[in-house]
């Protein structure tokens, strides 16, 4: 069913890739399976995520989008009875290798969650948190990073006068952009976003989408969404998942206009989901 055989080497992958970014791939998901205890949630998934582009993961609820996303920075590690097979390579380094430092891996992959989850601290403390855990105490560096990250997250103008206010006082959309700023502050290579707009109103959603468009090129973004229009608007590539499998992966235009699989066709036209 998948259009991508799981046995390709990194050499020839570029050639069959649906849409080449200028800089090649950053993440290779290779024949990846995942079990929650005895229940298999992901089946032999293989895709390559391109550097600097926005990749959307779509599919009906419960198909394993979040599971796949959380596997990428090993946030699933703590779940009892979880095991995996296959590989996920970040810059050709399997992230499940025994000597991989999970902490360092997560610092390379920022994550934004479905529900905005700022810490109950000040706005600036929220943004500088990734630096704090790295032991950076230099005031100048901290405040510079806070400003840059907030600007990147298009939040600076709204909060610059109240950086010392509690972050919980912000609106939902602002909170989500703050979380993006926090993720950016760690200077990651990849941004993982799990339905970042599902808890937001349309206005805030538009702002986040604009922000994603602006971040394109600087970070490789993988965004889970069940909103087809959103996927169409923000992503370069789209993967459609169904029942734990990636059914189809390709350029977003292609997926939405002439999908190869009937299931994809049914899903994007709204016949189920």
């Amino acid at each position: 069913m998948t259009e991508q055989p799981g046995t390709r080497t990194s050499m020839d992958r570029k050639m069959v890739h649906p849409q080449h970014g200028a800089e090649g791939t950053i993440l290779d998901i290779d024949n990846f399976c995942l079990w929650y205890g005895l229940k298999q949630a992901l089946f032999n998934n293989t895709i390559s995520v391109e550097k600097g582009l926005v990749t959307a993961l779509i599919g009906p609820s419960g198909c394993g989008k979040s599971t796949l996303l959380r596997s990428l920075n090993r946030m699933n590690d703590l779940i009892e009875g979880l095991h995996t097979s296959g590989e996920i390579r970040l810059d050709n380094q399997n992230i499940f290798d025994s000597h991989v430092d999970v902490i360092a891996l997560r610092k390379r992959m920022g994550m934004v969650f479905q529900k905005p989850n700022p810490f109950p601290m000040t706005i600036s403390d929220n943004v500088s948190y990734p630096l704090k855990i790295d032991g950076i105490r230099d005031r100048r560096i901290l405040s510079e990073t806070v400003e840059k990250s907030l600007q990147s997250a298009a939040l600076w103008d709204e909060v610059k006068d109240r950086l010392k206010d509690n972050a919980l006082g912000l609106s939902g959309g602002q909170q989500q952009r703050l979380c993006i700023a926090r993720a950016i502050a760690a200077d990651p290579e990849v941004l993982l976003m799990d339905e970042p707009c599902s808890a937001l109103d349309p206005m805030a959603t538009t702002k986040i989408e604009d922000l994603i468009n602006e971040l394109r090129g600087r970070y490789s973004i993988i965004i889970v969404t069940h909103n087809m229009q959103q996927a169409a608007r923000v992503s370069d590539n789209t993967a459609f998942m169904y029942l734990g499998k990636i059914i189809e992966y390709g350029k977003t235009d292609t997926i939405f206009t002439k999908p190869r699989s009937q299931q994809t066709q049914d899903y994007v036209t709204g016949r189920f989901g």
Partner: protein
Amino acid sequence: MQQTTTEKTVPIPGLRRDKTVKKSVIWADRLADRIITIGGILVIVAVLGILVFLTVETLPLFRSGQTTGQFRYQLHDPPPVILGAGMDEYHTLTYMLLPDGRIRVFHTRTGYEMNPLHISADGAAITASADSMDQESLALGFSDGTIRIAATSFDMSVIPESDLPSGLTKIDDVDQTDGDTVFSRITGDQYRLIRFRATVEEPIPSSPTGQPITNLAFQSSGEAERQTRALVSLDKSGYLSMNRVQEKVNLMTGIKKTEIEDIRLPPLPKDIRISVIRLSELVDTLLVACEDGRLFRYNLQNTATPVLAETTRVLPAGQTLTVCEYLLGSQSLLVGGSDGSLNLFFTIIEPQMGTADKRVMVKAREFTPMTAPVVRISAATRGKTFAQSTTAGSIRVAHATSQKTLLTMEPQTPSPPLALLLAPRMDGVFYLSQSGEASLVQFSTPHPETSFQTLFQRVWYEGYTEPTFTWQSSGASDSFEPKLSLIPLIFGSVKAAMYSLLFAVPIALLAAIYTSEFVHPKIRDILKPIMEIMASLPSVVLGFVAALVLAPVVENWIAAILLSFILIPVIMLTGSLFWQFIPLHLTARHGGIFRVIGAMLLLFVMAGITILLTPGFEAFFFQGDFKSWLTGNTGDALPFLFLILLPVSALITGLFYSRFVNTWLMTIYGRNSLLAASVMDVGKWVFLSVMTMGVSFLMARIMSRYGFDLRGSLVGTYVQRNTLVVGFAMGFAVIPIIYTIAEDALNSVPNHLRAASLGCGATQWQTTIYVVLPAALSGVFSAVMIGLGRAVGETMIVVMAAGNTPLIDLNIFNGLRALSATIAVELPEAVKDGTLYRVLFLSGLVLFAMTFVINTVAEVVRLRFRKRAAQL
């Protein structure tokens, strides 16, 4: 669904539901609502009721006297001089001794004159008299230089109404008389008979030259068979003589033998004008006070050779002594001056002053001056209450220790006093002025000795070298004065609570963090109930285990325990360092359970190491014996300071390290493999420990150089039942509570915050410290407060393991006495409605207030936390 569509659907037979709420449901709802409301109100009422009850029980402590009866009359033919006077305990009869040997006896409430008594002395006039503290005898000095001892008594008996003789004269509503005896009607149709008697013994020659005796001091003590009486007299020529009269009754023959012993007193200066001489109750002190305020103190402890121990002044120059009287126990001396001042003196031990018996008289208290000089003082025979009267006849009854004024009274016409008598039960004062104006005021002062000051402030008690907070509720002798300062008890409660929290809080919080953040929920579901089972141990069991098992063990192994406080963190850290050497794939797969087992094993290893190291440790730091080092006799302050400063310097070193060294090291780490990093970690650890010890040593050195020694403050002489033992036992009792509440607080921090932190690349520990703990901080704080509340109110453990010594001493190796323990121990023995009884109620009130405040703060913080947690 709309109503119309439901109509259209085919009803399922028998299942058509009525959609209105049933009456019974509404009623049940209302009933439950009422019951819950009433229950809540009842709880509040009960708590308030207890509060009100406690307050009502303690209020009388702070009341002054209340007049219950007042009698004023004009006494017939008032004598110009009275040499002695007395009153019975029911305020029925009063006697007055007159110089001509007559004893006038009259009815105290009305002045009704009884038949007088006569003391015959072969025509000599009585020139001086003195009564003994036991109120049963009187010494009389005569104009021929002799002294006679008179036994005086108010004889009392009770008869039924049927035995009442006829022909009695009515005195007032209650009393009748036959001229000698007063018959007072009392409850139950009975009559109380009171009669005054006096008998005089043979004369004892006192003045060698036969001069009239002008001043006399007298004490009588011992049982009837072997009485010792001491007499000191001053004759008109200024000769001071002391006699000891011993009466021995031969038990076989019944013959009385009187021995009179002359005691030579060291001479006084010639030019003095002696105003008063006073002999202490135990005949160990003789005071000679001069008109000008000079005071000579003889120490008579060595009967054969009295010494003039001290010459001092009790009045400023220019003042004249107007009164000088011992209070009960003959330690406190009240001295009045011509300016109306009244001061209290007693002796304290003060070797520096160079007196012969190393004691000096000090002025311990000043009373509010009167407008005229105080000329009469009548001291109570129970407690330290006394009555005083000025030349103008103003009367004040006060308590010497609490300085509480119990009663004041002004005469109708100012006139100097002839007699002032405080009733034996301290419930009345009789006053007779020179103009014959007599008044008897009856009053009640349930608790003259307590005031806010005696309960909560420093009080200078007799025999103490300075004002102190003292709790000592009972003593051996009758003249013992209860010392009821609540401060040592409050201190004890707080001390016990603090030291046990010092032990319990780290363990409880670390355990809470461990189960909520680091173990799998499944393991947590096992661990948590186990921790909570600890709470089900009755505290009395904990108490006796602590007192009978733990205390001796701790005493034997105290040095090992001290060492283990240092070794536990060190060995745990070392263990975790070596954990890194185990290959990652092994630890990753078997982490949880192996780590726990490893930690357990380490604990055993540590116990072994501790036992092995202890002798060396004691020898190296404490001259081989920690306990003798504690007494302060051996060694110096440095070693202990070094040990106790280790955590502080570890903190300083850690901060320094993370600030300056770490970032630099990080860059190197990045380039190395995991194993190399582990090796470097060991190096780093060695460096850090050496630096910590260095810093600690340096600080200890500096502090000990400046004379800083923890012995005498935080540590000191070792007592078996001490605060450390209490801390262990009570810590055990409060750990479950603190743990449970703190764990709940940590757990209520939503997981999405943890995910956010972990997603940023924080470690589990960083997530806990930077995100979870701050978010749960108020909840954790309230957990600690609730633990504190429990520890302050805890009773059985402190009763059994704390030694119950009411000291104000921070020393962790000394005992303490808590409020709760005092109530538990002393209430069964306290006389109902007595002072101690009420003070114990006050202790209860204070305890209630403390726990109430602590728990309220905890609860308020907890509610705030709940609200905040819900917003997260």
